[in-house]
C-alpha cells in the first residue's frame, strides 16, 4: 500500500516504513541506542532527500525518547540538574545547527555536509565499538575482570564555574555539560540524531557520571533538544514530515519492545560487535555514494516558494 508523504513529496510503501521503523527500533532496543544514526541513512537510501530525512528524524527521535524516558523516570534515574545544564547547551547548539543548516542549504552543500558528517562519525564510532567489543570478547574467554581506575583527575576538572550535582555525586565545572550539550545539539540539527551515541560515552568518560544515571538523563535532554530542532527545522526549512515520523514511530515503538526482549537472550559484547559491523556497513555505503562518479554531474533545484501560493 503506497502512501504519499506530504513533505518528502514521494510515495512510499506503508509497510516498508513500518518495517524500517520496527527494524531500527529493534536494533535500538537491542543495543540501547537511539537509532537516529541508522534511521537517517536508511531514509536517504530510500530516496528521501537528506534535508527532509534529517529534520524528520529529529521529530521521530523526540517521540521515541518520550517513550523511553518514562521507564527511567519511574526508577528516578534522571539527574535533572545535569539534564538542564546539558539542555542549556543543547538548545544553543541545536539552534545554531539549524541556522547553519539553512545557510548550507542555500549554498547547495547541505546534502554533502550531512553525508560527510555521517561518514566521519559512523566510521569513528563503528571502529571504536568493534575494537571495544572484540576486546571484551577476548577478556570474556580469558575470564579476566576489566580493571579501570574509578576516578582520574584531568584538566577537565580544572575548569571554572564548579557546581555540585548531588544526584550524580559529582563536583565539576558547569562548562563541561553545557559544552557537551552544545556539541550534541549541533549534531542533532545537522545529522538528525539524538546524539546518545556521543553523549552517553561523553557523560561516562568525560563527566564521570554513574552509568545508571546516564541513559535517563541523556534521554531527558534529547527530548527537549529534538523538540527544539523539530520546531526550528519546520519554521526555517519546512523539512519536517510529520506523517513519515509518525509511521516510523509506530514501527519503532513495537520494534523496541521486541529488541529489548531479544537482547536478554544474547551476549552484550557479541551484540555490540554486530552493531559495529552494521554501523561500518552503513558508513561504507555513504562514502561509496560520495566517491563514486554520479550518473549525471548536474542536479536541478527548484526555486519555488510555496508560502503564499494556491
Amino acid at each position: 500500500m503506497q502512501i504519499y508523504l506530504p513533505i518528502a513529496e514521494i510515495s512510499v510503501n506503508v509497510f516498508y516504513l513500518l518495517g524500517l521503523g520496527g527494524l531500527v527500533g529493534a536494533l535500538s532496543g537491542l543495543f540501547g541506542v537511539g537509532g537516529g544514526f541508522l534511521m537517517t541513512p536508511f531514509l536517504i537510501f530510500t530516496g528521501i532527500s537528506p534535508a527532509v530525512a534529517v529534520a524528520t528524524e529529529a521529530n521521530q527521535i523526540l517521540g521515541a525518547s518520550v517513550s523511553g524516558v518514562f521507564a527511567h523516570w519511574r526508577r528516578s534515574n534522571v539527574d535533572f540538574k545535569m539534564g538542564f545544564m546539558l539542555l542549556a547547551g543543547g538548545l544553543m547548539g541545536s539552534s545554531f545547527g539549524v541556522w547553519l543548516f539553512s545557510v548550507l542549504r542555500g549554498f547547495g552543500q547541505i546534502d554533502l555536509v550531512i553525508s560527510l558528517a555521517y561518514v566521519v562519525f559512523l566510521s569513528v564510532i563503528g571502529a571504536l565499538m568493534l575494537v571495544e567489543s572484540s576486546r571484551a570478547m577476548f577478556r570474556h574467554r580469558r575470564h579476566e575482570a576489566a580493571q579501570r581506575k574509578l576516578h582520574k583527575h584531568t584538566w577537565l576538572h580544572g575548569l571554572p564555574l564548579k557546581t555540585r550535582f548531588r544526584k550524580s555525586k559529582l563536583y565539576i565545572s558547569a562548562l563541561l555539560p553545557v559544552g557537551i550539550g552544545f556539541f550534541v545539539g549541533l549534531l542533532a540539527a545537522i545529522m538528525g540524531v539524538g546524539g546518545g551515541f556521543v553523549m552517553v560515552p561523553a557523560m561516562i568518560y568525560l563527566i564521570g557520571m554513574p552509568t545508571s544515571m546516564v541513559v535517563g538523563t541523556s534521554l531527558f535532554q534529547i527530548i527537549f533538544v529534538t523538540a527544539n530542532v523539530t520546531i526550528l527545522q519546520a519554521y526555517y526549512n519546512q523539512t519536517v514530515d510529520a506523517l513519515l515520523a509518525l509511521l516510523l514511530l509506530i514501527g519503532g515503538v513495537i520494534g523496541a519492545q521486541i529488541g529489548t526482549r531479544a537482547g536478554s537472550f544474547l551476549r552484550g559484547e557479541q551484540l555490540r560487535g554486530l552493531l559495529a559491523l552494521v554501523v561500518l556497513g552503513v558508513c561504507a555505503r555513504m562514502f561509496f555514494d560520495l566517491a563514486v562518479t554520479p550518473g549525471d554531474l548536474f542536479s536541478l533545484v527548484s526555486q519555488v516558494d510555496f508560502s503564499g501560493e494556491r
Partner: protein
Amino acid sequence: MIRATVKKCTLETVILKATLLAMAFLAFPASARAEALVADLSSHLIAITTGFQGSELLLFGATDGEGDVVVLVRGPEESLKVRRKDRIGGIWVNRDEVTFEKVPVFFRMASNRPVGDFVPYTLLSRHQLGLRFLELPVAEPTVLQADIVSFRAALLRGKSREGFYAPGEGKVTFLGERLFRTNVVFPPNVPTGTYKIEVFLIRDGRVVGAQTTPLIVSKVGLGAEVFLFAHRHAALYGILSVILATLAGWLGAVAFRKV
C-alpha cells in the same frame, strides 16, 4: 478498478462531445468558419490524492477541414537552479550553478506527423514547439555561453529523467478527416499548478486555428492540506509535529507498560 471505470465514463462523454462537435460543424458551416479548430480535455482537473499513481487525459477536438494538429502541454513556469558537481579530494561536490528563468515544470508535445515535416522554423521557434525551442533566460549575467549550453542540456536531461519533459513527440490520431484525439500521460510525481494546453491547426505552413485550454493540477486531500499548512504556518506546524510525536511516544510507553 476505479481508474478503469473513470476512464470508461470519460471516454463515453468524449465520444458524445466529439459527435456533438462534428454535428455542430456540419449543421452550421458558417459559424464553423469562424473557428477553424475546437478542442477540449476529458477533464480540466488532475487531483493528486494520497494514493495518486499518475493520470491520463484525453484531448479531443475537431477541425474545419484539412490540416495538421500540434498539441503543446506546458506546466507553470518556475526558476530552476542547475548545479554541476566537481571532484574535490576524491568526493563529488556541487560547484558551479546557473539559474534558468521561466522554466516550464512540465512539457509535452504531440502532433499527427513529425512537426519538422510541415511547420516552418520560424513558427517552431515562435510557439516554442519542442524542447530545443524552449526559451529559458539565464538569471546570472556573467555566465559563459559554453556553460549555458551544457547547463541547459543538463536541465533538459534532468527534467526528462524525472518524466516531466518528453524528448520526442506524442501521437495525435485523426478519426476520419476532422476529428482528432491524443492521450496526455501525467506521471505520479506531476508538479502542481495551472497548466496551459495549446492546440494549433497548421495548414500550408501557417497557423490557421489555435486554442488554449487550462488544466489545473492540484494536490487534494490530507496530503495537500498538510503540505500547505507546513509552508504557510511553519511555526505552528512544527509545534504540532512535536505534540504529535510526544503523544505517540507517550501512548507507546503506556501501551507496553503492562505487557
